[in-house]
């Protein structure tokens, strides 16, 4: 009898040599089926790129406002503005993550990716506020350090999902971070905005378009 996957009460029998080839084929079919289900399951979770776009857009706005406020010598508002922007970013992120949780499935890759970005986000928030307001870090130097954090986080995401787009973004952030160390002036905010657009917002938009296309299929 053929070694097919049991349906109902069918028993497995594989005693005659004549069935051997057929059983081997059936075993191969089973392995192929397992492989297909595993691949399909891993593909259930798709990054929409929405969180990347969200942070990309709000940070670009905040960086441009910082540049403008420094030029206008409105230093006192910069801290409040960043406080409001980062708080809004975190609240919206929590809402988007909660929405993702309702997808009904989670993978280990997603767990590691979420942990990476959560820890990087917390570190960058502490660095941005405590680092600058304690006077330990110069405001012009903060963007370079943040860029390196983003490079590491993007590289981990790119490695987990085997996504070239994120690994390239990581490279962009690292090169950008190295360049930013040489800009000890207001233009650090402009350059960081450009990096944010190229290596966060654009990859986010590309992911979103890809997600929508696949959803429409």
């Amino acid at each position, binding site marked *: 009898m053929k070694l097919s996957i049991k349906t109902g009460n069918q028993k497995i029998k594989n005693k005659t040599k004549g069935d051997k080839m057929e059983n081997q084929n059936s075993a191969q079919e089973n*392995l192929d089926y397992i492989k297909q289900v595993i691949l399909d399951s891993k593909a259930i979770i798709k990054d929409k790129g929405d969180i990347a776009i969200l942070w990309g857009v709000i940070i670009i706005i905040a960086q441009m406002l910082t540049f403008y406020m420094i030029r206008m010598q409105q230093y006192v508002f910069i801290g409040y503005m960043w406080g409001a922007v980062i708080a809004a970013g975190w609240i919206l992120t929590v809402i988007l993550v909660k929405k993702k949780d309702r997808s009904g499935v989670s993978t280990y890759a997603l767990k590691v990716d979420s942990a990476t970005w959560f820890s990087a986000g917390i570190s960058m928030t502490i660095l941005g506020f405590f680092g600058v307001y304690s006077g330990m870090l110069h405001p012009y130097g903060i963007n370079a350090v943040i860029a390196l954090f983003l490079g590491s986080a993007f590289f981990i995401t790119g490695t987990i999902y085997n996504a070239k787009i994120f690994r390239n973004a990581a490279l962009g952030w690292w090169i950008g971070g190295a360049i930013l160390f040489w800009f000890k002036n207001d233009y650090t905010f402009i350059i960081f905005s450009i990096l944010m657009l190229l290596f966060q917002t654009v990859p986010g938009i590309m992911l979103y378009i890809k997600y929508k296309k696949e959803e429409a299929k």
Partner: protein
Amino acid sequence: MTEFDSNLLDELIHSKLRLGIMSMLVSVEYAEFSVIKNKLQATDGNLSANLRKLEEAEYISVEKTFVMRKPQSRYAITDKGRTAFEIYISNLEKLINN
């Protein structure tokens, strides 16, 4: 070479739906009932019965929660289930290479 005895294949896993469930759960952290149902295109009754069999064998675990007052069952593979699945695959490979 000695003939591989296909009776060594774990009968609990060796059914299309249960094999699908195990294959799916081995690759995720957890999956809800509705997700498994959609992915494997199973009926509620059939899926419930097969999930119960795997649960009774302690191959999978279930966590029942309420999300927005709606009951949700999250299924995950156990260590025992993972080991059984690995043995099952290893036996399939032995059968192919026999």
